[in-house]
């Protein structure tokens, strides 16, 4: 399978850099999968899981919040304001994230922002549920 270059960067560090087969992005207008040779595009991300597949049938999940993805000829770059690999996820961190999302929901009256916050809360709750198994 053709691979392409993928970089996941958060303000504090570079989380991932290398060749991958596919990346599933939680794009703001719906999840999308990026494969090698994708047309250049740019999209913002919502809160959710990004799935990196570097070997077929095997994926690592990273929780990202607030960021955007830039797909160009050179590959895919994801700039996430916050990125947490699945191994680092704990109940406490998720609780904090949920609290923050709820505060964001409380803070605005803008229906679009509220919807985004709601979906973020749902995603985070789901992640928390999954963690208990």
């Amino acid at each position, binding site marked *: 399978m053709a691979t392409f270059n993928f970089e996941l960067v958060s*303000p504090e560090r570079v989380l991932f850099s290398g060749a991958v087969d596919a990346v599933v992005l939680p794009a*703001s207008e719906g999840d999308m999968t990026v494969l090698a040779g994708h047309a*250049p595009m*740019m*999209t*913002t991300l919502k809160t959710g899981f990004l799935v990196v597949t570097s070997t077929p049938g095997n994926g690592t999940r990273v929780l990202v919040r607030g960021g*955007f993805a830039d797909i*160009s000829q050179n590959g895919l770059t994801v*700039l996430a*304001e916050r990125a947490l690999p699945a191994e680092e996820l704990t109940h406490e961190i998720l609780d904090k994230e949920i609290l923050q999302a709820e505060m964001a929901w409380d803070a605005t009256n803008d229906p679009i922002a509220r919807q985004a916050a709601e979906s973020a809360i749902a995603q985070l709750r789901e992640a928390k549920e999954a963690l208990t198994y």
Partner: protein
Amino acid sequence: MPSLKDLRNRIASVKATQKITKAMQMVAAAKLRRAQTAAEAARPYAERMSVVLGNLASGITVGPETPRLLAGTGADQVHLLIVCTAERGLCGAFNSSIARLARDHANRLLAEGKTVKIICVGKKGYDILRRQFAQNIIELIDLRSVRQIGFENADQIAQKIFSLFEAGEFDVATLFYSRFRSVIAQIPTAQQIIPAQIEATGTSSDAVYEYEPEEGEILATLLPRNLTVQIFRALLENAASEQGARMSAMDNATRNAGEMIKKQTQTYNRSRQAMITKELIEIISGAEAL
């Protein structure tokens, strides 16, 4: 002429001071390494961000639709200075050189009849600027309890500035911090962050970019984030610069103390010898008189 005991005490106290400065230098060196790695780790994000913004901005013509963070308010009357300094002293000219740059800038603006507002990040800058610009300072942001500067700290500051901007409290914002060149060179820098200064990259490929959602919308979400990133970078550079400045200042102090000890030990030995000689002469001349 100080007595021998005085000299001994003085040497002991300088030695104690030297021990402290030496310890501070080593602590600063260890912290510097950490601050430097943090600053380097943050660099890819900031670079990527500016490339993406440059690509976006070069495709957009400035019009009434353009976000105000990029185009500005159209006025140039009220200036906001964000002065980032350290929370602690004993780091050479680090704090005062940033404060001096900010002060010069503020004086120039005031002379032009502009209104100046100041936000101080870090206590030391506040202490220096308070003397002259007490009425201009609108806020002091304290990062004393923060051990390692995180993105959240920068985000809080950016939110504050952003809400001030939305409320029409200022037209132009300039960020003052110290850029980290090397351990001995830190460059006080003034950087305009609102309206955003974006160097249009001429290297944008001809390939047609697709945007999801629309270009303008992406730009609107990106610009506040860029503000945060700029502040975050400034804070990290500042942290590294502070430790670098402290390290070289403490290195100097240790060396000075060493010289002082050497000089005083010499004086001490000389006067001790002089005393012995004097006593001997007294004994000998006493014996001869018999």
